[in-house]
């Protein structure tokens, strides 16, 4: 066991976060275009017969259908029927809809998971130690890097594609299961050894494909790839909850006082109710002052589409769509640009990923500690309830990263000495906004200077923790001490932390 630079104990055999390492591995050469046109089949069973599949392989999936995805479950059920075992799955995220994978984990069909986010029964099974190998929790940008660098080698990418044409070109913009941008599928398309498009709609021609048919080996037509209503999972409405609204108002005031709202700025926010309220407040300030943003990026919601169409935002750099309004906007707004996962957040993307051009990002937190390390991977008992997604990518890339959270949630203080699990290192987190005060990372002396005299309630982060303790008392935090069930991999491939079972 050894410790990384943020003091987290890691097993041997992994590169600790913060350790000097040779320059990033050179990018792999992407798979060459397939020499022949893709083969069209009508069942997953036929695809499995056509592919030479073995135990121990890695299958990848994307999560653009979010909690409405059918494809991962169907593919893995077929793998189980064929008696395959010891498989690793590499979906960009897993949701409650993936519950059917749990028995496959229990029976050793699936023994490894590499993903950026998991929530629901699969996450519970992993937390309980049912997965044979530790899951690897990447970031959105880190997954693209890992695939391109060969850290994550994919044998077959099974990609849900809402519409495919006769040449194998694919798009998510149209079709009965349209889910919008397919940005997270791009590295899989170019680097997996075999690529299968799983679709429920085949057309003669897709005019502006998001996925190039030249890299596709098989296209399989099935009755349904998912329930597109499931892409609107999670909160996509502005909160009415008064504490959330207060935090949002204070966050917008902070962003303004920090001098970040000037003509041509760029931003990203999450899709949670408080983040959406921050955007609403920023929009109000923009309208009052006649300001325009150059771009907004990330997961796109109806709120950003409205701002684009009102001329308040120059372009949307969209890696995934969080609601059906965003999906519809893609086809009618040329300034609504689809980007790939690598373009969005990979540290190896040249000249620079989109996240590096952000003036500010607004992010959530399940826990945050006195070093500003943030946890969005586990709850306070160490049970996996999420993962980085783009959290660590944007926090690192943006000039100012702002975390918004209630100081106390469910009678637990959110600010603590040490977070249960580090998802985003404190060196990438600049400001915490809570309902009882704002804390600025001491390394951002420039921000502290700017905020002086702003009238905002800026206090040391320790004072916020003590305030929380005044309300809740000091909770006893038993740290899980069972076997390691997951590794949190930073975007550069180093290991930030581990998750252990109870």
């Amino acid at each position: 066991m050894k410790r990384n630079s943020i003091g987290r104990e890691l097993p041997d055999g992994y590169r600790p976060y913060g350790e000097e390492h040779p320059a990033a591995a050179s990018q792999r050469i992407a798979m060459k275009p397939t020499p022949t046109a893709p083969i069209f089949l009508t069942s997953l069973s036929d695809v499995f017969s056509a592919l030479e599949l073995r135990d121990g392989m890695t299958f990848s999936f994307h999560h653009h259908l979010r909690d409405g995805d059918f494809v991962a479950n169907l593919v893995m059920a077929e793998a189980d029927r064929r008696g395959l075992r010891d498989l690793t799955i590499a979906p960009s995220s897993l949701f409650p809809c993936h519950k059917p994978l749990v028995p496959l984990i229990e029976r050793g069909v699936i023994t490894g998971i590499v993903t950026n986010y998991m929530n629901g029964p699969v996450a519970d099974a992993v937390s309980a130690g049912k997965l044979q190998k530790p899951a690897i929790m990447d970031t959105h940008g880190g997954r693209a890097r890992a695939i391109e660098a060969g850290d994550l080698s994919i044998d077959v990418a099974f990609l849900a594609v809402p519409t495919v044409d006769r040449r194998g070109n694919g798009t998510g913009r149209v079709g009965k299961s349209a889910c919008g941008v397919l940005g997270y599928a791009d590295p899989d398309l170019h680097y997996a050894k075999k690529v299968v498009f799983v679709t429920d709609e085949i057309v003669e021609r897709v005019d502006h494909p998001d996925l190039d048919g030249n890299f596709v080996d098989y296209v399989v037509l099935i009755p349904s790839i998912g329930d597109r209503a499931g892409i609107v999972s999670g909160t996509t409405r502005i909160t009415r909850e008064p504490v959330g609204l207060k935090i949002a108002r204070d966050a917008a005031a902070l962003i303004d006082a920090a001098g970040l709202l000037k003509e041509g700025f760029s931003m990203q926010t999450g899709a949670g109710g408080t983040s959406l309220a921050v955007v609403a407040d920023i929009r109000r300030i923009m309208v009052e002052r006649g300001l325009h943003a150059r771009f907004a990026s990330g997961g796109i919601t109806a709120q950003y589409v409205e701002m684009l169409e009102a001329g308040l935002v120059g372009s949307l750099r969209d890696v995934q769509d969080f609601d059906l309004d965003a999906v519809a906007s893609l086809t009618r707004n040329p300034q609504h640009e689809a980007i790939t996962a690598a373009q969005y957040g990979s540290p190896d993307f040249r000249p620079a990923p989109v996240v590096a051009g952000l003036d500010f990002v607004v992010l959530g937190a399940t826990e945050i500690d006195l070093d500003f390390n943030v946890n969005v991977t586990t709850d306070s008992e160490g049970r996996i309830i999420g993962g980085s997604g783009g959290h660590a990518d944007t926090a690192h890339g943006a000039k100012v990263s702002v975390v918004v959270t209630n100081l106390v949630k469910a009678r637990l203080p959110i600010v603590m000495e040490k977070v249960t699990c580090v998802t985003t290192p404190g060196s990438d987190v600049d400001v915490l906004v809570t309902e009882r005060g704002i804390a600025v990372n001491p390394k951002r002396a420039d921000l502290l200077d700017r905020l002086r005299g702003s009238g905002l309630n800026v206090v040391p982060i320790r004072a916020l923790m003590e305030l929380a303790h005044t309300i809740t008392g000091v909770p006893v935090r038993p740290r899980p001490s069972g076997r390691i069930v997951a590794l949190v991999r930073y975007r550069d491939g180093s290991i930030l932390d581990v998750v252990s079972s109870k």
Partner: protein
Amino acid sequence: MRTTLLFIPGNHPAMLQNADVFGADGLILDLEDAVAATEKDAARILVGEYLKSWKLETPELLVRVNGLPSGWLESDLEAIACDRLSAIVYPKAGVEELYEVDRILSEIEKKHRLSHPIGIIPIIESAQGVVETDDISYLPRLKGMLLGGEDLTADMEIGRTREGAELAYPRARLAFACKAAGIDAIDTPFADVHDTEGLLADARTARSLGFTGKAAIHPNQLLTIRTAFRPDPKDILWARRVMAAAQDAAKKHQGAFSLDGKMIDKPVVKRAEGILSRAGVQDGAIPHETK
């Protein structure tokens, strides 16, 4: 100054926990209408413990108690009596009842050895209460009067409208009585928590009639109420100029003087002082917009 008083249900721990963060001038912890009969005991204990053990700084703390006819008043007062309690908010107030409440409070204060008397803010929410407004306003312990529009219109058997024309008379009556007695006039809550425009208009009406503040039933209403009661920046600028000119005139021993061609005398100077006081302007500075 009690510009915003926020009602918080007394049986809701999560709301109590965050009640102090919204910037209300006072919190009315409710043991009456917001609490079902079966929840009264739990609410009484919770509010009592909050008053006695909450360690963080809070706005002024008031409790809406159950009235004498309910039979619960004395239990309520026993549970909440402490030095942190500023005043009780007394429902469906009438003169005779308030004399009795005053007597009970005196006993409670003595028994609990409180260091200061508990104030009363009666809710005027019956026709009888409106008629007795002038007499009530001079009772001991009064810190202000609160208009209760919903119960009042129910008592009058008249409809309650968004525009609130039906409240014109009781509002005027209450505002004058409070002004004469030197206590706060607090307007009735606006019931539709989603109608920000309606709330703004309603609060502006109250302000124009002489109310000093307004009760809120949801934290999201506070910003709008503060906006309505905050003097207009143009008025603040005018008041500052009046005060500067008044100082000049005083040096010249002038009782009245002219500004922009209009005569300025003592009542006008007093109005300018009031505007600056409500705006919180000190040393002639114009305050930042507060959020």
